[in-house]
């Protein structure tokens, strides 16, 4: 396939994956784990797709959208990093940390669309004065389409202009850069986990983290196994909260 054809194919896939974040349904095809795999399937290298997708997933696992915050765009980053790795022969371990700056730039594009969409609101206000429900429908579909474009355009540009550049870079990549990015890639998931920790933890709940860590580090517990113990403990914890509130009611009487 010609470069422009490949770029269009990658961009189409990236656009559809990206669309899932805000455009429709929240089915999570936009998560790096799925996005990397899909891109790998399309370009005929599932193994690379799985590895890059799952590695980027670990980095962004703990980064969540709360309130008005827009998290870094891990979807664009995964789609582009996977495609470049497969098309230019970039080492998967190096492609993963290089996805981070891509995610930051794509995040700014999302902020731009959130800003542009304020214009849709003003247009919607005008339709409301006329009672035009078809008009507001059109605006909603337009907004949805913008999020497809937000995935499509950067992926097209990255592949069309990037493949040869990255190929040239791969040939001359010194060893220390590979080492550096591998170390960085190993550390980066800690940031997402730290963010999740800050969001969820208080002193009262710290023992549960210690328990989970110990079960995994010392006793090699699997994620699913520890999660089931965690589920049981969560219900015990809620029951204790219930008991406490009953006692309080009793004391108030």
């Amino acid at each position: 396939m010609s470069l422009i054809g490949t770029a269009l194919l990658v961009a189409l896939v990236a656009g559809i994956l990206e669309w899932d974040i805000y455009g429709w349904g929240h089915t999570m095809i936009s998560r790096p784990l799925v996005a990397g795999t899909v891109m790998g399937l399309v370009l005929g290298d599932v193994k690379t797709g799985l590895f890059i997708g799952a590695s980027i997933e670990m980095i962004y696992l703990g980064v969540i959208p709360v309130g008005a915050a827009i998290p870094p765009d891990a979807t664009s980053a995964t789609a582009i990093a996977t495609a470049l790795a497969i098309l230019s022969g970039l080492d998967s371990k190096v492609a993963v940390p290089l996805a981070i700056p891509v995610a930051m730039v794509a995040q700014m594009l999302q902020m731009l669309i959130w800003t542009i969409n304020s214009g849709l609101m003003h247009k919607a206000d005008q339709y409301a004065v006329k009672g035009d429900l078809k008009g507001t429908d059109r605006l909603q579909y337009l907004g949805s389409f913008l999020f497809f474009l937000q995935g499509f355009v950067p992926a097209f540009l990255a592949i069309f202009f990037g493949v040869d550049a990255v190929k040239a870079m791969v040939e001359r990549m010194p060893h220390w850069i590979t080492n550096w990015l591998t170390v960085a890639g190993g550390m980066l998931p800690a940031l997402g986990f730290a963010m999740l920790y800050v969001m969820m933890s208080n002193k009262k709940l710290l023992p549960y983290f210690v328990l989970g860590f110990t079960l995994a580090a010392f006793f090699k517990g699997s994620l699913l196994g520890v999660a089931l113990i965690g589920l049981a403990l969560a219900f015990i914890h809620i029951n204790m909260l219930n008991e406490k509130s009953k006692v309080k009611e009793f004391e108030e009487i």
Partner: protein
Amino acid sequence: MTINNSGATVQKVTKDDLKKVFWRSLFDMASINYERFQALGFLFSMTPIIKKLYSDDEQRQRAMKRHLEMYNSHPWMMNPILGVTIALEEQNAKTGSVEETINNVKVGLMGPFAGIGDSLIWGTLRPLLAGIGAAFALQGSILGPIIFLLAWNIINFSFRWYSLPYGYNAGIRILKDIKETNIVQKIAEGSSVLGLMVLGVLVAQWVNVKTGLALTVGDKVLKVQEMLDGIMPSMLPLITTFVLVWFLRKGVTPNKLIIGIFVVALVLSLFKILI
């Protein structure tokens, strides 16, 4: 069919209408913006109901305006809130008496519901399912993403499908229930318990920080990493995570910390302190 105060007939909301709202609700964030967030998405989802309940031009315009007011919550939570809102709109179409209540109820619900969604779904459910999926995928199994997608979407679509009629039938009573049962705090704490245990596993298994330092004692070479593993496996990942927690609590932004990680990784990898 009933007759409202002004003498016009008012249609009743049916199951089919709720289905239409369900399909539209999946576009909830398509026009998200900094000014009023998901407001247009809310109106978009309410459109079949507004069409049905308000044939009068003026009433229809007022309803449109009403649902273009600021709305922001966790995406799944739009469905139970839509349910309650539809029940209120139906009552309003009949009696015209609850117009001002409608937005107050929406605002009253979106906060607590966002609290549940952020802690339970974003903070716990998704990291758990994605973590399990990614762990499979890193071993080279395509089952990883498949399990993740299946599990997530069964829960995603069932919640959104069933919570809509639930909200419609429960109506305004939900507000009182939320207050009395203290459900938001319970779910937040319960999911934090589960989430923190999962997080402990993730830190132990998926943060990769290893030292390449070696000590020469006499003619023996001691690898520091092996010593550390003997004391406590995954010690360096744990330390790395808590250093980052400390910085986050100091108010350092994640983007600055990312740059910091790249700088530290460069320096320590050049001297082979980390490999």
